[in-house]
């Protein structure tokens, strides 16, 4: 869940960046999103509180490109092994090289990919994937069901340091039953599994190559061997990764439009802005918030906003004042989320009042989620008196609250400062504790490392459009990020049942029942749900604009603009 270091490598120099002009953002975005509605694949998601219209894709490309330059969201990837990839940059690069069994589309629907069909038995304990027979790896060898079984099983071997091992928690066996058929059996039904097969956890890599490379697989020296629309031409450590179009790609309708893509690793915000303005770099996802005013006014291209499954929240730790639900509730009441979204995130985020972002709702069960959302208390008007009354005489309110944030990250510093001021209005003292990136990521796994921290300012994301992908990490008694030892057997039961429930509406009922219970205790303090921010040069177009880009071949559809 926590993508802790989202900004860590775009360091402190951002504060030198350019002048702030908030107003212009809405205008430019409104005009650019209307352009994209003509594109056949684009859909729009209404955004409840802000004027910004979100788009799933940018206008379709007109023709091919000789070369494209793109900046990776978080600097140089440390690995391109789909099993070890734990970050935006590696996820994005891998998803342009390697393919998963199912394809994730920009509107978060799924379609056939390496698997043409998948069928789950009536008892939900067996899923059968039918594989394409015409897929070859870049070296010309055909993809077999053995490759698929081998690739999936790599996620289960602890020696690989698998990042998504938890996706396979319910899996009993993975076997090839014919050259074009793979069967996965489960100990208990798991409705999430099939969705997760559209992420890099469902990627297929060539067995012979992967075994030959061993430890080196996925590194600059070892490389990867996959089936996707691009292949690695070179990885120049410290400089760039160059991708070349895969001419033998099986999927004629999704062939790469750019012959060559140069992926740069610029992590400094001002350098990135200057390179995007000059056109030397033609696009980037996760455009840094601090750069948005400058990029919105840039003549060289356009900022697009799309739906995203990213959230920003305060995760409490115990012991200490944050372990007290009343303190959490009072704090949640006075955080002005709208101001935060506008002033710090420049309109690229929306107020959120529950653990799960609205973007994660199952489309077929929107009404269930919506009525649960409507029933949630929301601090749209800040009631200081009520919040004060809530903690009057509470000894925990006397204790200073340590808020841990990522050191040197201007967006987090601004966010924390706002929280600090708002907490002061009800008599709570908040100390901002800047933590180095490595120590911060350790804090999520090591109780010793998070000692003394009361809240961790956390940026998290869901891998798939399903609340359960995230809930299981926080609200169960044994959840990884349940630092306050929240334990409600009713919630655990509802969520466990939901994971075996395949009907979207029935599952939504269970999830929203659990939500009513855990939100009463304020297991975390939700603050914002994010939009994806994409900047793209006017000479190119076609990139998906939603956060789904991290798991789809996002750059294959980028071509010349009309």
């Amino acid at each position, binding site marked *: 869940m926590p993508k802790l270091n989202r900004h860590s490598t775009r360091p402190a120099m951002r504060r030198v960046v350019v002048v702030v002009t908030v107003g212009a953002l809405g205008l430019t975005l409104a005009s650019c999103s209307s352009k994209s509605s003509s594109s056949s694949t684009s859909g729009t998601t209404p955004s409840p509180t802000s004027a910004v219209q979100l788009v799933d894709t940018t206008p379709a490309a007109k023709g091919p490109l000789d070369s494209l330059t793109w900046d990776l969201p978080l600097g140089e990837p440390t*690995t391109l092994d789909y099993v070890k990839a734990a970050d935006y940059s590696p996820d994005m690069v891998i998803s342009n090289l390697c393919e998963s069994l199912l394809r994730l589309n920009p509107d978060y629907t799924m379609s056939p990919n390496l698997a043409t069909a998948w069928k789950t038995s009536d008892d939900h304990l067996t899923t059968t994937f039918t594989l394409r027979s015409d897929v070859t790896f870049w070296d010309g060898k055909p993809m077999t069901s053995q490759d698929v079984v081998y690739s999936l099983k790599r996620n289960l071997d602890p020696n690989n340091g*698998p990042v998504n091992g938890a996706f396979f928690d319910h899996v009993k066996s993975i076997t090839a039953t014919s050259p074009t058929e793979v069967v996965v059996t489960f100990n208990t039904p798991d409705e999430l599994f099939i969705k997760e097969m559209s992420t890099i956890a469902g990627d297929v890599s060539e067995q012979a190559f992967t075994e030959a490379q061993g430890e*080196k697989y996925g590194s600059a020296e070892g490389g990867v061997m996959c089936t996707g629309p691009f292949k690695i031409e070179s990885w120049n450590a*410290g400089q760039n990764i160059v991708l070349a179009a895969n001419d033998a790609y099986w999927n004629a309708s999704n062939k790469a439009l750019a012959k060559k893509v140069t992926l*740069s690793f*610029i*992590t400094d915000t001002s350098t990135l802005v200057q390179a995007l303005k000059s056109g030397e770099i033609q696009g980037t996802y996760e455009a840094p918030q601090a750069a948005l005013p400058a990029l919105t006014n840039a003549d060289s291209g356009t900022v697009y906003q799309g739906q995203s499954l990213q959230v920003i929240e305060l995760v409490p730790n115990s012991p200490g004042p944050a372990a007290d639900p009343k303190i959490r509730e009072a704090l949640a009441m006075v955080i002005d989320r709208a101001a935060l979204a506008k002033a710090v995130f420049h309109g690229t985020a929306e107020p959120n009042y529950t653990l799960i972002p609205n973007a994660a709702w199952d489309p077929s069960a929107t009404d269930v989620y919506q009525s649960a959302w409507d029933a949630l208390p929301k601090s749209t008007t800040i009631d200081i008196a009520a919040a004060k009354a809530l903690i009057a005489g509470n000894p925990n309110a006397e204790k200073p609250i340590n808020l841990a944030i990522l050191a040197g990250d201007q967006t987090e510093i601004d966010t924390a400062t706002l929280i600090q001021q708002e907490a002061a209005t009800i008599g709570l003292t908040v100390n901002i504790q800047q933590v180095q990136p490595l120590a911060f990521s*350790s804090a999520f796994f090591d109780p010793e490392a998070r000692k003394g921290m009361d809240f961790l300012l956390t940026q998290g994301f869901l891998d798939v459009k399903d609340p359960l992908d995230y809930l299981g990490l926080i609200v169960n008694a044994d959840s990884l990020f349940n630092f306050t030892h929240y334990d409600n057997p009713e919630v655990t039961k509802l969520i466990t049942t939901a994971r075996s429930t395949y009907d979207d509406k029935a599952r939504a009922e269970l999830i929203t029942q659990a939500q009513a219970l855990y939100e009463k205790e304020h297991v975390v303090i939700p603050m914002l749900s994010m939009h994806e921010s994409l900047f793209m040069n006017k000479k190119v177009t076609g990139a998906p604009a939603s956060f789904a880009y991290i798991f789809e071949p996002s750059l294959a559809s980028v071509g010349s603009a009309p």
Partner: protein
Amino acid sequence: MKYALRALGGAMVTIVIASLIVFALLSLAPGDPAAALAGNRATPESIEAIREQLGLNRPLLVRYVAWLGGAIHGDFGQSLQFRQSVGSLLAPRLGTTLILVLFAFLLILIFGVGLGLLPSLFRPSGWFVVVVAGIGIAVPTFVAALVLIQVFALNLGWFPVLATSEGDLRDRVWHLTLPAIALALSWTAYVAQITRASVREQERGEHVETALSRGVPPRTVFRKHVLRNASVPIVTIAGLTMAGLIAGSIVVETAFGIGGIGSLLVKSVSAKDYDVVLAISLILVVAFVIATTLSDLAHAALDPRVRARRSS
């Protein structure tokens, strides 16, 4: 010969002590590299497996000795974050940093010394040199970088914003021009001031006045008596400059998005990537030793008194 041996021995001791300190300090910094590698859904078991795999569970001293043993044989270990050998990780970056530093060094020598000599050749320019040098020293490198990019890359379009290039040496040098200027700026100003002061001191020296009063042509006096004597402190400063530039490249590499060893050092320190940090520290120490040794040798060549002291 004896002198060279002594310098080498000193360098070795420096390297061992420096690497031990770096290693110890790094291990004291908070955070577990394995947790960062394990990703956002890591379980304690998978973090433990990664720790085991990377050898992070061994005692500190054992790890240091193992690294030292490897380093002696030319094996600088493995990068934790990139999971590849430090040698292959550093080689391309070292080339980039080397070109940048040499380029900047050349600029410093040409413009620093040139600017310092200007008032002697053309007297009214004295105030100008003082002002320019003052500004050069006062402007922080990252501000210079921003201004240079804005003016010469974005407004005038003479140079690219980004300094990375896949082309031949000429293309790489063209890409590295703005970074080299940004890097050279404050050192140029410093060298200019040292040159100016040192030349002035010589010009006022008795030996110069004597030579002039004896009717030796001023040009000859300037070349043989002023310049030669003044060059001793300049050469000393140049040696220090060279070493300082390698450290200064960290800021410039970040500002221009250059993948050199400076930017890698920053990234590796925050990721506690021991072997990479050690290898880069080693490079810095070696570069420092080479630069100071070279300037010592040049010093000896220019100053007969030093030579005499050494041979005795």
